[in-house]
């Protein structure tokens, strides 16, 4: 269940209230987000669409604790992250958020295995446990046979699947995907979308995705449009189940 009217039932996993973000460029104030409300329940798959500069990525950054809002609050699983200090927010991100980036953002000098292992280095898991988790995550994305490969030895689609494995390996509370198929051909994009779809449907993950691609958005259960910093409509996507 997703709502944008600020009247959530209080059980939502992610709740934003009066969220605003203003940048100052020269003497001019640019209001990227203004008074935005959002409620997302656990297990939802939400796509944010909108023209360039509409504030999609800014919204994702605020929900993921990568940026701080100029106004309003974000609460995730009962924790108001907009009140957290920098260090606490960093620890919170490690525990609760799995990021998937448009450009994959893999560390080029680390193998697929080592890239996926990175979030686990912040947990108290033993080396053996970490290895087991990494192997499981790579198996979920179908790249067990590529774990010793470096990013340069992988195709774009494979790189993004490694990125998704990295996002899910520490079992975060929710996934934030910023244009996950923006740099991929159709076939690879479909594979990545199938994977996200499966993570939500079979593994009960909550995913929020920014995209320009209507076909990608169509995979989400809910599509929200951002225009000039405001969520303007909530549409049930074509394949909503």
């Amino acid at each position, binding site marked *: 269940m997703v709502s944008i009217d600020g009247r959530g039932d209080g059980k939502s996993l992610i709740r934003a209230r009066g969220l605003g973000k203003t940048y100052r460029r020269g003497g001019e104030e640019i209001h990227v987000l203004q008074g935005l409300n959002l409620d997302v329940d656990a297990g939802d798959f939400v796509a944010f669409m909108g023209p360039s500069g509409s504030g999609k*990525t800014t919204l994702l950054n605020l929900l993921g604790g990568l940026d701080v809002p100029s106004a309003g609050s974000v609460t995730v699983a009962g924790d108001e992250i907009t009140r957290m200090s*920098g260090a606490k927010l*960093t620890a919170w991100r*490690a525990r609760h958020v799995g990021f998937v980036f448009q450009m994959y*953002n893999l560390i*080029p*000098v*680390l193998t697929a295995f*080592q890239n996926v292992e990175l979030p686990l280095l*912040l947990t108290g898991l033993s080396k053996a446990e970490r290895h087991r988790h990494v192997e499981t995550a790579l198996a979920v994305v179908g790249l067990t046979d590529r774990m010793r490969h470096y990013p340069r030895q992988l195709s774009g689609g494979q790189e993004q699947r490694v990125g998704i494995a990295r996002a899910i390996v520490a079992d975060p509370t929710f996934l934030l995907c910023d244009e996950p198929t923006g740099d991929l051909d159709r076939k690879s994009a479909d594979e990545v979308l199938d994977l996200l779809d499966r993570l939500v449907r079979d593994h009960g993950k909550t995913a929020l995705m920014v995209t320009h691609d209507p076909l990608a958005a169509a995979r989400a259960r809910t599509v929200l449009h951002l225009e000039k910093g405001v969520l303007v409509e909530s549409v049930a996507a074509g394949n909503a189940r």
Partner: protein
Amino acid sequence: MAIPIVYNVRSLAARWTSTVVAVLGIAGTVGVFVAMLSLARGFEATLVASGSARNAIVRRAGATSEMDSSVMLEQVRVVEDAPGVERGGAGPLVSPEVVVIASFPLRGRGVEGNAQVRGVSLKALTVRPTVKIVAGRAFQPGLTELLVGRNVAASYEGLELGQTVRFGGGTWTVVGVFDSGGTAYDSELWCDYSVLRQVYQRPLNMFQSATARLTSPDALTGFKDALTSDPRVTVQIDREVDYYAKQSRQLTTLITVLGSIIAVVMGIGAVFGALNTMYSAVSERTREIATLRALGFGSGSVVVSFVIESLCIALVGGLLGCVVVLPLNGFTTGTINWQTFSHLAFAFRVTPGLLAMGLAFALLMGFIGGVPPAVRAARAPIASALREL
């Protein structure tokens, strides 16, 4: 847990050209730093090793070295009778000595260098048991014969075993070579003091110093107290080791200070090299750093990671600098000992302590060069950095 070091090591390898430049900058600085200090250490060690803890050198009160000292024969007799002096078959082990400077052509340099000529009795070999004759024989008393240190023939022309030289108005023959174990004596020429005094027309009852072999190192206090309170003599007494250590101090300090200044100037250059390498590393990897921070690695982890990366460069540079300078160990060179105005041959001494200092200096450069870029890396706003290309 911190960002894995393999990330830093592989990143350095991936940007090997700028890494090599920074490594070479640090290696050169460490090399010069260690070389200069090993020069000072070698000079100091050569002089300090010349002295024995069991020997006391007696000079005129107020004399800064043997060169401006004088000890009369009557005073030598008082020294011989002083408590604590070792006695052998030939009586008290006290060696009265005369020192002059003579110049000889330095080998392969086309200029002359001053050598210290020490007039001694054969007792000098008993007073200094580390001095061993390694070729030829000792001089015969009453003859113009020379027993030369093992560095003399290598430093000067015409002073090899069997050769004859003229100096001080006499003609001298080199009849023996001695080895004092790498000390200052190895650069000296020894002969009979009575002959030397005659040739140089010195008063026959005058020496410049008297070196006494004591029964034990602890005997110095009693020996010193007895002589300094004796109204017949006005002398100063130093443990031989301290006397040579004092002699070495001026030049050692000069070399150390000069070496440190050069090292600091070069070090500043090397730090800029490291800074440049690390700043470019940070700017090239803006998105990687932002990704790591997005994943949950804190600012502290990022700072530590990049400082470690800089320290890796410094460590490799430091090790390289040490390895390059290591063959200098034992390499013999020479300089003027400004206390005696004579040429002194000595060897570079690259000690483990100096190598450790070199490595510490390298790591300091790496740290200074690593912290500002590391802090910049940790402070960049994550949201915008994630979108950097």
